[in-house]
């Protein structure tokens, strides 16, 4: 057994001036980062344990095994469900006995296990670390879960806002797995076996592919030692390198327009622009682009700008109309959408506004006003322990730093925005997804 020096571990202390918060980062054997953000005065303590394994990781190879493994869609999410069960029964009961509220979620790029509690924090943390590190999959339990996840998939099939979004992604992307539903399909999950789950587990659940974030009124030193002791009990070998393969994605879109009919009161539209630069950016550059795009979309579609107000007055949108940008290391897109009585009209108005902005540019008044808004909104979100932990690790897994937002927000220049608009909101790479009301009844 490898000897682990428990004492040698001193944290990196990260002070954030804008937030007036101090973050402690420990790197524990065998290569996992543990982040702790003390928040005095909070009753709640919140911890997450995340692995960089999401729905898009369906083609991979782990050295020294030369085989490139392709797994059915929905495996990461299925695995998330199944970790909650082991030989002793279900994990919910054990958290419940300790007064904690556990949960988990799977995104395109990561799987996160979490709990919150107001007592027994250390025992709960131990339980979180243990259950995620102890897989137990049987034929019977996999079969039962196919029924449960089958219902989850059916629930989303009936959800128009979910459908319009995934139909949009399938239009934007020809090959990239982000075009597939996170939970997979009834057909794809029927192919999942215990063997397959173990295989994915061994590939992606090594601590060096994972991270822990704890936030609440806690002592960083005690917590980091707990995590280190826990991991050392599992005798890890160093991690082999994971190679994730993504099919070649052309810069072009896959399908310009997708329509689906569902029982809805009026049409729902999502309009997307494919970002073809994003996989060439890393770290700060990626975060910078995210901030620039947030600003661009604010200027175009924000509630304080003329377009939103005119569309609202004309009854073409409601106050749930939204615009956002999402960037990961292998894909990125802007999304604009909402419910509307006249999707064609709304579509034309949005496209016109985008072209108009390219000509008009952004005034310094707009730039400053939206910069203030983004800064204030950013700081306000740090009242939520869940926001802090979930987002910090999501940013970290894509190689960016959530804490750098205020500094970058000060750094960006108005002139940069125009380049990003031209590059990123390119009419040649846009897609429309529509949900239309069923007419026959």
């Amino acid at each position, binding site marked *: 057994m490898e000897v682990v020096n428990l004492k040698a571990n001193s944290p990196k202390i990260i002070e954030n001036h804008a937030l007036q918060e101090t973050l402690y980062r420990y790197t524990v054997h065998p290569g996992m980062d543990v982040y702790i953000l003390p928040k005095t005065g*909070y009753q709640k303590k919140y911890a997450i344990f995340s692995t960089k394994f999401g729905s898009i990781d369906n083609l991979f190879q782990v050295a020294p095994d030369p085989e490139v493994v392709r797994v059915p869609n929905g495996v990461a999410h299925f695995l998330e469900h199944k970790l909650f069960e082991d030989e002793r029964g*279900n994990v919910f009961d054990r958290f*419940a006995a300790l007064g904690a*509220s556990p949960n988990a979620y799977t995104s395109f790029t990561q799987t996160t296990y979490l709990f919150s509690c*107001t007592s027994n924090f250390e025992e709960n943390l131990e339980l979180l670390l243990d259950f995620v590190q102890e897989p137990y999959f049987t034929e019977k339990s996999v079969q039962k879960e196919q029924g449960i996840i089958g*219902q989850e998939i059916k629930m989303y099939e009936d959800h128009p806002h979910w459908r319009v979004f995934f139909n949009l992604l399938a*239009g934007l992307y020809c090959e990239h797995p982000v075009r597939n539903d996170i939970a997979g399909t009834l057909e794809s999950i029927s192919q999942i076996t215990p063997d397959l789950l173990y295989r994915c587990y061994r590939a992606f659940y090594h601590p060096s592919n994972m991270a822990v974030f704890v936030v609440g009124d806690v002592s960083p030193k005690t917590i980091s030692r707990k995590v280190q002791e826990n991991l050392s009990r599992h005798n890890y070998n160093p991690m082999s390198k994971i190679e994730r393969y993504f099919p070649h994605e052309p810069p072009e879109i896959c399908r310009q*327009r997708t329509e689906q009919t569902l029982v809805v009161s009026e049409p729902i539209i999502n309009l997307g622009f494919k970002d073809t630069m994003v996989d060439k950016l890393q770290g700060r550059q990626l975060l910078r682009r995210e901030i620039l795009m947030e600003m661009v979309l604010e200027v175009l579609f*924000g509630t*304080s700008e003329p377009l939103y107000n005119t569309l609202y007055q004309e009854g073409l949108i409601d106050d749930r109309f939204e615009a956002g940008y999402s960037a990961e290391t292998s894909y990125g897109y802007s999304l604009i959408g909402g419910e509307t009585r006249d999707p064609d009209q709304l579509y034309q108005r949005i496209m016109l506004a985008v072209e108009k902005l390219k000509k008009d540019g952004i005034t310094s008044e707009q730039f400053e006003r939206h910069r203030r808004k983004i800064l204030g909104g950013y700081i306000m979100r740090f009242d939520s322990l869940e926001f802090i932990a979930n987002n910090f690790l999501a940013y970290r897994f894509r190689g960016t730093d959530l804490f750098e937002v205020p500094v970058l927000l000060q750094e960006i220049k108005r002139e940069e925005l125009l380049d990003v608009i031209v590059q990123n909101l390119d009419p040649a790479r846009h897609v429309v997804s529509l949900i239309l009301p069923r007419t026959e009844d």
Partner: protein
Amino acid sequence: MTTDYATHYLPNGIRLIFMPTPKFKTITMGLYIHQELNEKLAPLNALLSAVLEQGSRFYPDNLTLRRELENLYGADLSTDIIKSGERHMIACHLETVHGKYVGGNDKLLRSGMSILGSVMGDPLIEDNGFKKEYVDQEKDQLVKEIRSLVNDKGTYALEQCLRTMCSEERYGVYRLGCIENYDHINRESLYSYYRELLFNNPIDLYIIGELEEEQVLEAAREALAFKCSEKKLVLPAVEIDYPVQEVKSLEEEMVVNQAKLVLGFRTYTGFSDAEYCSLLVYSGVLGGFPHSKLFQQVREEAGLAYYIYSRLDGHKGLMVIAAGIDYSDYAKAIAIIDRQIEAMVAGKISTSEMENTKHALINLIRTQQDSPSQMIYSHLDGSIGGKTYTSLELIKGIEDVGLEEVKAVASRIKKDTIYLLRPRDGGSQPESQ
């Protein structure tokens, strides 16, 4: 553990509840006008809350108002309409970052309060009425919102169950009222209703943040200086003893993939009753959490559902059980649910089910103190329910609940309505063009 709060009355009778705490990065302000829930008033309340947000005398349109808010570091302002028991509230909520995070700006409380006061107390008036464009526009938006309820099948099913169950009671009125009742409202009648409401109805103002009491009082007095009656309207109490003659049943068909099952129950236990904590434990053991009977039996054992839960409206004394299932499993699911309810009546509850549920409930109560909006809602619950529980009292109350108390609550509960949203034929797949 409970955040201390101070209650004051502004000169015009508005009740101010100030909760000082250094732990948030925000200043939160919430104004709540209390009204009774009924069919006639519901659309007036909903429309009023929407029209007020469109513009005030100082900020005559949404664009001007939103720009002002953005300059306050993106302060978040929204009006809302809340149904709680048989109470209906018009709410206005404003949250801004605390000045110490943006260069020591100490004007944010006052500026925020002034915007809130302007929106709620000093609206844009033309010819003794609200602006016609805003009234028409918001009527259209609300009608659209009421129709869009069907877009979320889970919420739709829940509302259909409650509507069927309480068709003879005020509680059966939807949060936004019904579409037909919007027709006769005009800009003058809405304005005169607004003036009456502001003058007669109880109004609560909440302010939470790292602030001095004196500055809070001053900002509130200055921003909310409108006149109110000295005698506040007393709103009717909620009725919780409506009898069940026979179990009602409603089935609807739609082109969906998943069936939605919602069961409505009457508990005959109210918020101010001594048995309230026992009811919380009852619903928690039955279906409030992942360790609860319904989740364990229907989902984990039988694999029939992804979601299944029970939930209370503590003010009205109602409980619903909701699940998304395959239609072919309908009978099976109902049978398992019924068995769990029978087990509750028979007191077949293990020690760990009891203890785990108490822990979970106490956890929820404690964490309310970590969110400004939850701090407001738990205090509002006290005003609506006519009984104030501190967190400690509620925790103690829950800890003291024994098996016999849960059985006693269980024996009173009656099933009232079964609602089922049933798939007609398969859902549709996307078509490309």
